[in-house]
């Protein structure tokens, strides 16, 4: 076993931190990561946690690539991926490694997502806090926000047309459910904005209504 510090695992309070050597090239990192996960044996088995990549700036494709390695080599459920600064220019194409079992495990996040921060999750997301302007949420399930939605949310990223997006204060810039997208160029109507509302997909179009009906 070679001693290679291109990839180092660290336990953080929010999950596993993967420290990547800034100077190492990407192929080398892939290789070392694969080796190290194998070397870890059953350590990751059945674990369900978040992953944070630190050290090296990754392209969105590269992030997906590394997550696939986790998926290939370990029985491991990734709940979400975040980068160290919260600055992820996260995948236009959602993370969807075919082999990750669709866990439907709910991610609860008690924090405000601020401008520039991105949350990606395989399953439904519940956020106890706001999603501010410039923040983005991607979930294969529904997105429920106990707070204000001022940014962008995409529910059902792998095509789930039954996913919904709801928020106590509903004022997103735009929304996406499965493959359907809606922009609020003129802002969200007052009656939607001022009452808990949700967006759902019907007949290929997104509708928004108050939750109380």
């Amino acid at each position, binding site marked *: 076993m070679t001693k290679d510090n291109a990839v180092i695992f660290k336990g953080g309070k929010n999950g596993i931190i993967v420290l990547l050597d800034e100077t190492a090239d990407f192929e080398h990192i892939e290789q070392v990561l694969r080796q190290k996960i194998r070397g870890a044996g059953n350590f990751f088995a059945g674990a369900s946690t978040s992953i944070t990549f630190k050290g090296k700036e990754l392209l969105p494709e590269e992030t997906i690539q590394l997550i696939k390695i986790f998926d290939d080599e370990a029985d491991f459920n990734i709940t979400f991926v975040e980068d160290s*600064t919260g600055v992820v220019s996260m995948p236009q194409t959602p993370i969807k490694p075919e082999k990750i079992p669709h866990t439907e495990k709910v991610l609860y996040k008690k924090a405000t997502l*601020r401008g520039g*921060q991105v949350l990606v999750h395989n399953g439904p997301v519940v956020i106890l*806090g706001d999603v*501010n*302007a*410039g923040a983005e949420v991607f979930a294969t399930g529904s997105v429920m926000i106990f707070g*204000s939605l001022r940014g962008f949310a995409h529910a059902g990223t792998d095509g789930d047309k039954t996913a919904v997006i709801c928020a106590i204060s509903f004022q997103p810039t735009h929304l996406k459910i499965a493959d359907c997208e809606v922009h609020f160029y003129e802002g969200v109507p007052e009656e939607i904005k001022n009452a808990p509302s949700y967006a759902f997909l019907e007949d290929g179009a997104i509708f928004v209504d108050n939750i109380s009906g």
Partner: protein
Amino acid sequence: MAEVIVVTSGKGGVGKTTTTANIGAALAADGKSVVLIDADIGLRNLDVVMGLENRIVYDLVQVVEGICRPKQALIRDKRYDNLNLLAAAQTKDKNAVSPEQMVKLVGSLADDYDYIIIDCPAGIEQGFQNAIAAAHRAIVVATPEVSSVRDADRIVGLLEAANIKDIRLVLNRIRPDLTRRGEMLTLEDVTDVLAISVLGVVPDDETIVMTTNRGEVAVAESGSKAGAAFRNIAQRIVNENVPMLQIDLEEGFFKRMKKKFSKKG
């Protein structure tokens, strides 16, 4: 051990440097020993605002490069003996210093002062990373404008990611007449978005323009409303239980009334 506070905002021109100078002066007037560090390498201003431009011998970059000792580079303020400035270099850029060097520098001063206040440059790049590297707590300065609040939100996210937990808001340049008419964001509008606790509210005040141009600080002027606000903020840094200025109370009252009416309707 000094408490290390970074004053930051994301957006430029919202009053970081003025806030740094005034809080520093107010703390010094209160008997605390204070070092102000201008981290805005290449675009230094804090020395000008404090009227110490002519006294600079060594700067931050020279300290980091080991050309002089940190204490040699400190410039004593004209008014307050226990207020010191470490000026930024004007001929270098942000990359001349690394976050690790800032941590080391601040560490070497920490034992001898009560407060070290770092004036952060605008933006979120290297200069920002340098400025926050050594900080224990942060003061985010925003003005009641949507663009400023957007940037402040981004900054709060980055500060949280950098594990700085004590983040307080200074809402600068507020105009009660405009907020009352609903033509300017109120304190509540801003805290709704930012969801951080408020350290203070500073009214828009021409004494700031006058004192800054003279190289003086508003906190030294007894008639200045902004000066009084900064004195209050400094007291709140030392001790939590200092009441807010009248202008924020007023604003809170109007907002409450507005809410009451809108609930009925």
